[in-house]
């Protein structure tokens, strides 16, 4: 199946979960990454149970913050 990851279309096995995608994409510091699936944010607790479908659009967003 084809998944759009960060704007790039890639081929993956059927049934791939978000957690598996994070691993395959070697996302840096994944514990601080917010994931959007088709423009909806996915709770990190659901990464293991959320299977992706053909044509899904996934974005990885780093938490960005700081302080003085």
């Amino acid at each position, binding site marked *: 199946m084809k998944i759009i990851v960060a*704007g790039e279309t890639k081929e993956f096995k059927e049934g791939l979960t978000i957690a598996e995608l994070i691993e395959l994409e070697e996302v*840096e*510091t994944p514990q*601080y*990454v*917010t994931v*959007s699936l088709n*423009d909806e*944010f996915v709770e990190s607790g659901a990464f293991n149970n959320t299977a992706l479908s053909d044509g899904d659009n996934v*974005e990885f*967003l*780093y*938490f*960005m*913050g*700081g*302080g*003085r």
Partner: protein
Amino acid sequence: MISLLKSDFDKIVAHAKNELPNEACGLIAGTANGDDKEIKKVYLLTNTDHSNEHFSLDPKEQLEAIKDMRANGLSPLGNWHSHPETPSRPSEEDKRLAYDSRASYLILSLMDEDNPVINSFHIEKLISQKEDLIIK
């Protein structure tokens, strides 16, 4: 080396002054060629902390900005935020929360409001390194 248009610098300063006494923040986008980055667009986002000591980017606005970058053929290059009362250098919290080692972190100091100072930093594993920033 990282370059920033004077007009974009002015946008950042104006937004940061408008948000005083709170910190202001946003994203930067452009093109990258090795270590050379050219900022072609700056995004003025909401500081969801609404604080003069902390900032967090709004994830929804972040996502919209990323989509706009793609639509305009730009790459995300990092972020910017203001320090209303402290110098243009990463705080310990800035370093601790810098999770993306590929990003450039621009910090605008408004300690002297009439003479804003901006610097760019590479931050990795809690160590910050000043980048050569050119405003043109």
